[in-house]
Each structure stands twice: as C-alpha cells, then as structure tokens.
C-alpha cells in the first residue's frame, strides 16, 4: 500500500492522548506554586523538544539529499511529514513569547526587568537576551525553517505528479536542501541559546547548541524507527526492509555516541577548569538532581551503546523498538534536565523576592520547598503529570505527521534514487535481498 490512510480509529486514539496531555497540563497548573513554574517548564520543555525533532527531520533530509544519498528515499516521506510540525511548533513557541511580554511566567531570569537592573551580568547580555530579540529571533528563524520545510515538501510531492525520474526536478530539491544546511547550522544555535540556554542566564557554554542539537537528532531517529515499524505492522511501507532499519539503527547508535562525546566534552572542560561561573551549572545538577544527572547518561549512553553495539540488535524489531523507546524517553529526560533546575532557581529567587516584600508565607507554599529531596516528582525527576503531558504533545506531533503523511504517496515514485533505495543492501551476511 503506497497511500497511507489516517483512519478514524487512530485519530481517536491520538485525540485521546492529546486530551490526556491537556488534562495533565491543567492539573499541573492548579497544583503549582503561584508562579506556575511546573506548568510553564513542562510546556516549554515539550514545545522545544518536539519542535526540535521537526527541525532535525528536515536537517537529516537536507543533509542526505545534499550528500547524494539514495538509501533513504523510501523513508523520506516520514521526515517530510515530521518537518511540517514546525508550523504548530512555532505556534507553541508563540505562547511562550506571549507569556514573556505579558509576564505570565518566570521562566527566564533576563525577562525580569527588576532583576536585570540589579545584575551587571544580565545587563551585559541584555542586548541579546531581551524580549524583543527572543520574539524576533523565534519568528524569523522558525519562519525560515518553515519556508524550507514547506518548499522541500512541495517540490517532493510535485515530483510525484509532474516530475520524471531524471535529475531536472530533483536538482531543485537539492538546491533548497543545500541552502538549508548552513542556515540550519547557525540559526538553530541562536534559537537554542534563547529558548533553553538562557534559562540559566548567567551561564553559557559554546558546546551547548551542538549538544542540544545532537539530542534532538537522536530523538528524531528513534521516533522515525518507531513510526516505520508501526507503519510496517499496519501493512504500509512494505518495501522498507531490515536493511533500511539497520542503517537507521546505525545512525541512532552513532549519534548516541556523538551526543555523549559532546556531553562529556562540555562537562570535562568545565570540571577541569573549575571556574566558578561555569561550574555552577553542573554543580547544581550533580548535587541537587543526581537522579536526573546520572540517569541521563545511563539512558542516553550506556543503554544504546551496549544494546546497539552488536550487528544483529540493529536488525531485529524487538531490540530496535526497545532501544528507540529508551533513547526517545532519554532525550526527553535530557531536556527536562536542561530546563528544570535553572527555571526552578529563577522561580525560587522571584518567590523569595516577593516573600521579602509580602512576608514569609509564600516561600513555603507549593512544592518549591522540596529542594533537598532527591526524588521530587515534577522537579528532580519527571512525574506522572510530566509523562502525561509528554504523551499529549507526542500525540499532537504524530497527529500532524500522520495527517501530512496521508496527503501524499508513501513512496516518492519519481525520485531518481528510488531504485537505489529499493535495492539497498548493507549486510554481507544478511538474507539475500537485492539480487
């Protein structure tokens, strides 16, 4: 079957999960402290995570097209569909922007004019970290990504209808893809600094954007593998075989190691240099969030490294699905770890500040006093509300992706590389597929 039909049963399941996500967000809002820190961090966490997966899907596709890759042609419609989540992603981020202008949340220390006035470091950074740049940067940069995502998708679908299998039509996709790569490389860093790194407004790291990007990349690969296996179980994508999944598994393995390399490079240099303004980030996480800190490495390095090291684990559905779920959850955990501690410190300072003015009862309110506990659901590790929220966002992501997927053929029939993808054969000892 080349045409995916987004049937009502699947739609209802996804809508069900979206409702669950909304309910979880709603509950979070009401059990929260008065700044609604938990609600806003969860919202930002999931918005950033899934928008990033959409960006990385576009990036993967552009990189493969530019590199004359052929094997991925059979699965590229999935990445096209994922990349179109950038549009809802921008809407999700607009809510955060409105929150900054309306002072609905205290996610960002630099957005608090009073705090900036008393803080020379924040003043020094205020020409970049200010609501205007945050808004402008997000709108322009994500807007540009959307332009490329929509254009590449259009050209690809148009190739089915009006193109031929020669390169004339394909060349246009190549030009757009090649132009996207440097643009995505530089602009994603700026957006990552504003969206996530500026939560710890005093701190900065030059490796942070790469590390975050690698996290998105692995999550995108894991989700791709899961989606392909789901679609295959429904009888779609029958031409995608274990050879393609083997290659996707290799990407997941390789980029898990790449992520670890970046994580460690960032950690070790800061640990070794031992400069107070840099170590503050890791000290806070290691001492007060040990489960998050070490769990991150177990989920995202130890598990995929040892499971996917063997050849055959990348060629079996069971191990691939298991590792994809672990790694997808692991990188979601990683973003939780990036966002929560900094936002919590900012909120606690704001609450203490209020308490100084209005008495001491406010600081004890809610869960903000639970700083010392190694397990405080929703703060030092993700709680059930966080999981529910994630499932809701995931359902939204998949709803958009499946909807886009059903609008075009699953097989790009006029892609000049389709024949190469159909014959893809990587394993010398594998079953004979191609000949």
């Amino acid at each position, binding site marked *: 079957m080349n045409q995916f039909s987004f049937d009502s049963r699947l739609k209802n399941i996804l809508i069900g999960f979206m409702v669950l996500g909304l309910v979880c967000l709603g509950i979070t809002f009401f059990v929260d402290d008065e700044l609604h820190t938990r609600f806003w961090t969860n919202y930002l966490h999931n918005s950033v995570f899934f928008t990033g997966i959409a960006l990385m899907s576009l990036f993967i596709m552009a990189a493969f097209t530019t590199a004359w890759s052929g094997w991925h042609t059979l699965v590229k419609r999935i990445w096209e569909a994922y990349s179109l989540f950038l549009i809802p992603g921008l809407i999700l981020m607009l809510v955060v922007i409105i929150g900054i202008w309306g002072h609905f949340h205290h996610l960002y220390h630099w957005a608090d004019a009073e705090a900036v006035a008393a803080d020379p470091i924040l003043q020094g950074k205020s020409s970049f970290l200010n609501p205007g740049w945050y808004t402008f940067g997000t709108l322009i940069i994500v807007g540009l990504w959307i332009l490329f995502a929509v254009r590449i998708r259009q050209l690809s679908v148009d190739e089915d209808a009006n193109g031929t299998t020669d390169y004339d039509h394909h060349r246009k996709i190549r030009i757009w893809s090649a132009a996207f790569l440097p643009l995505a490389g530089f602009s994603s860093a700026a957006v990552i600094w504003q969206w996530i790194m500026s939560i710890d407004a005093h701190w900065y790291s030059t490796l942070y954007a790469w590390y975050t990007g690698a996290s998105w990349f692995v999550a995108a690969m894991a989700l791709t593998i899961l989606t392909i296996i789901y679609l295959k179980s429904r009888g779609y994508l029958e031409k995608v075989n274990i050879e393609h999944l083997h290659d996707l598994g290799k990407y997941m393995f390789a980029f898990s190691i790449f992520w670890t390399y970046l994580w460690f490079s960032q950690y*070790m240099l800061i640990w*070794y240099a031992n400069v107070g303004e840099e170590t503050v980030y890791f000290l806070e996480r290691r001492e007060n969030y040990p489960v998050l800190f070490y769990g991150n490495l177990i989920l995202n390095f130890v598990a995929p490294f040892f499971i996917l090291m063997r050849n055959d684990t990348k060629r079996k559905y069971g191990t691939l699905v298991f590792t994809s779920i672990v790694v997808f959850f692991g990188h979601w955990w990683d973003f939780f770890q990036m966002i929560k501690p900094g936002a919590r410190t900012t909120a606690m300072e704001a609450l203490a500040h209020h308490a100084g003015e209005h008495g001491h009862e406010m600081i004890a309110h809610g869960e903000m006093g639970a700083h010392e506990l190694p397990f405080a659901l929703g703060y030092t590790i993700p709680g059930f509300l966080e999981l529910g929220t994630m499932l809701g966002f995931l359902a939204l992501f998949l709803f958009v992706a499946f909807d886009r997927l059903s609008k075009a053929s699953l097989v790009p029939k006029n892609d000049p590389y389709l024949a190469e993808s159909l014959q893809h*054969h990587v394993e*010398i*000892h594998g079953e*004979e597929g*191609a*000949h």
Partner: protein
Amino acid sequence: MSKENKDVLYGLYDDEEVLLKAVDQANAGHLEIMDVFSPFPVHGLDPKLGLSESRLHIAGFVFGAIGTLTAFLFMTWVFTRDWPIIFGGKPYWSVPAFIPITFELTVLFASIGMVVTFYTICGMAPGIWNPILDDRITDDKFCIAFDVTGSEEAEKEKLKSFFTASGASEVNTKTI
C-alpha cells in the same frame, strides 16, 4: 597449511553479477570451489560460499575491554596508591580526567589486537610469501579457483566447460 604445491585451475570474470551467477551454477553442479577472489567485497557472495560470519569483532570487543580495564585500573593504582599527586585541587581519583586516556587505550588495544588476530588467522607474517593467481584480481577481475592437484583430465575438462558456460573471460592453470 600443506607445504605441497597445488595445481589450481581458475577462471576470471569481468563482472561481479556474472561471478555470482557462476558461483550459483558451480554450487548446482556440485563443483568444489577452492576460493573466490575479488577486488572488493561482493554483497551476497559469502552465504553462497557457505562462509559463516567473521568473529573478528568479538576479538575486537575483548581487546577493547582489556584496554579499558588496563588504562582505568593502572591510572587508579598510580594516582591513589603508587604516586598520589594533587592536580589543580582535584581528588586523587579523578574519574573524568581518566576517561580520555581510557578511551584512547581502548581504541589502541582493540585496533592492534584485531590486526594481530587477523594476521594470525590468515597465516600472514613478515617474510611469508603469499602466491597470487593473477595480478588483476586486485584490480578489475573476479576469480573462481578450483584445486585440481592430482585430478583426472576429464575432471579438468568438466571444470573448463563450466567456466566457458558461465561466462569466464579467461581460464588458466597455475601451480602455487
């Protein structure tokens, strides 16, 4: 390995697709192939020849693990027992500082161990001469070789007719 010379009858093919079909034909005719030579790895050839998957990577893992332990335990011993020195106010047992060296030694042990293992399996060492059937099997020819030491003339004719039928561009005999 036998020290005696072998008489080898071999055919050269121009294309790997032709070679794969020829191997199928040889298998169907129950001809006992001594070896197949190709300038690059040909996909799907190993199962046809009944070769099992190489276990070299298991050796690689074992050597790598030995490297990891050697580096890590040695540094631990040096910096906690033998000659403890404080570097930059860090504890004696500074795990993050050990990791780059541990990684390097893992790679070093795995790579050298695998090279030595591979050379041993293939019977290669400095000073050993490995006969080559035809120089062009390292360039653009694909070769199927049969051991015809002490074979009957009729047997050799049968093999020659197999080569002709399966599209070999050249058939030769060589004693190695």
